[in-house]
């Protein structure tokens, strides 16, 4: 098993509107993957395609190296957006539901989690707080014993404390069970806290994907006397550039050490990197035509 998600030319159209176009990506298995992107980037569509809630309009998607569908259901845990639960069913009844509908159900794990979370089994899910409901949905996803757990903005509706608890809890479960996880969020801080692999999706396109440590180690902010972008060394891949009269600031990716003494070099945070890639896509779109004309 090498990949958790693999999309090739994946596209999804709702009526006349494309929610996802030409999406090609590989997400390795055995990692905790953060899928980040602005609202409307196609994150939810991608994840819903991955679990088979949607069918692709174009292209293909494979999960755990197999097409989505019937037999894959048992291997994938899915915590949907807004973590839906049955309001009229109690916590215990949710576990019973899980036990009835999943052959691989791990009841002792589920019971232990509920106890650990301090949830009252008799409580109706409709009376739980948002954080508790998300935890219940996560419990259902985990106790199913999937190979891959997909979470679609699981913490979007939670307050910062509940958010942190949820993600911590998720991480504990992941280390105990050696799950692959794909988690989407529009907040980099969520991803930074819990993931070790990052995919940035903007306008259906993967801007960058890679190991978070490697990303942090290969991106720099360079500031120095004003100079043109084209005069940068070949192995410096410029993500963004800004200029004042005298000074230029570049965000670059490079695998090589930076030797030029003219630069003052600083490290980037993950948020800086993500924002740079998101901004790049936006500015590329805006300036697409004029830039092309200039080059011709």
């Amino acid at each position, binding site marked *: 098993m090498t990949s958790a998600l693999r999309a090739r030319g994946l596209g999804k159209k709702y009526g006349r509107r494309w929610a996802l176009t030409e999406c090609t990506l590989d997400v390795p298995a055995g990692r905790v993957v953060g899928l980040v992107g602005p609202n409307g980037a196609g994150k939810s569509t991608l994840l*819903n395609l991955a*679990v088979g*809630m*949607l*069918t692709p309009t174009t292209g293909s998607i494979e999960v755990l190296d197999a097409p989505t569908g*019937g037999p894959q*259901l*048992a291997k*994938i*845990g*899915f915590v*949907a*957006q*807004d973590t*839906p*639960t*049955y*309001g*009229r*069913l109690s916590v215990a*009844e949710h576990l*019973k*539901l*899980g036990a*009835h*509908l*999943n*052959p*691989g159900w791990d009841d002792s794990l589920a019971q232990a989690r509920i106890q650990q979370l301090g949830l009252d089994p008799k409580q109706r899910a409709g009376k739980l707080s948002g954080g508790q409901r998300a935890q219940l*949905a996560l419990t*259902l996803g985990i106790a*199913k014993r999937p190979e891959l757990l997909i979470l679609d903005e699981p913490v979007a509706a939670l307050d910062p404390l509940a958010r942190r608890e949820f993600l911590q809890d998720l991480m504990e479960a992941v280390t105990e069970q050696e799950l692959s996880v794909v988690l989407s969020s529009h907040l980099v801080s969520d991803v930074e806290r819990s993931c070790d692999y990052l995919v940035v999706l903007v306008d259906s396109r993967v801007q960058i994907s890679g190991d978070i440590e490697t990303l942090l180690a290969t991106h720099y902010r360079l500031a120095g006397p004003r100079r043109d972008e084209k005069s940068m060394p070949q192995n410096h891949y410029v993500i963004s550039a800004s200029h004042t009269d005298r000074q230029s600031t570049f965000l670059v990716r490079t695998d090589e050490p930076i030797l030029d003494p003219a630069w003052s070099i600083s490290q980037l945070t993950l948020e800086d990197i993500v924002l740079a890639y998101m901004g790049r896509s936006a500015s590329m779109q805006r300036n697409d035509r004029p830039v092309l004309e200039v080059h011709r």
Partner: protein
Amino acid sequence: MIWLTWRQFRLQALVVVGAVAALAVVLVVTGPGLADDYQRYAGDFLNQIQFDRINQYLYIAGQSLVYAAPPVIGAFWGAPLIARELEAGTHRLVWNQSITRTRWLVTKLAFTGIGAMVVTGALSLAVTWWADPIDDAIDAGQTAGFFEIPRLLPPVFGARGVVPIGYAAFAFALGVAVGLLVRRSVVAIAITLAGVIAIQILSPILIRPYLMTPVETTVIVTVENMRGLQLSGPGQNPVVMRVEAKADGEGNWKLSEQTVNSAGEAQKTLPSYLAECGPPPPNATAEEARSRQPLSVCFQRLADDGYRQQITYHPASHFWGLQWREAGLFLLLAFGLTGFCFWRIRRDLT
């Protein structure tokens, strides 16, 4: 999956089953007494029982409940079945367990749909069995006040035999399909209620008459079989629009009737002397009334002139033929709607 289906459905199930069971118990308790009375009074049966209020009450209550069952089942068992999941987003929870949504739907539809048919069937059986002496007496020509409608006629037909089962299955499938399309419980409930009631009203007019070939007959109007006379115009010289007669036999369902002349041509108006065949005008003096000739003379003249009534009708013997055909037709429609649901649910639903 059966556990979950029952858990989500038990409240609606208990309400309907409770109402049906309550009525069924009363019917089962009073039914044998009614059957005994039929044995005892024979030809005078309806006259004897008509003043017993409980009989009228149960007759109406049974009929109403059998008619109410399909719309209620369609709206409250069928419509929310999928719509409620889509509305609350819980379909994204339940469809991502280890069973496919096709299997989820199979269990839901089979469990609830068969439940709908069994409950309605039991109700219809109880009502049909209880009312059997009354229906028999009416088909034998008895009438008494309230009890006068043969079981083949639309007001009673749909509350007897197997037809309610077909309607229940159809209403349930319609509710599920509508819920799947509009994705909102309340709207789906309203549409299903309206749709099923409309079908119940329209089916006796648009569908049922054509399920079997009706019998055509020609009768001569006589004093005994005349059932109606329609006049139009001023009191002194009215135009006779139509006359109606009764076909031979009891318990028939008349579909159409027209008067033809000796050449076999349908008549728009009838000879004016026919006005004499009816009762005297309300403002007639006693002398005028006395001077009228006997009715039989008037009808004899009509017959001598060659006028006949052409009647098409379903005889009482068509009852079960029509019952099975109509039930079968609505079961087929239910299967069609179910097929649509399976097709639709495999497609995107987020």
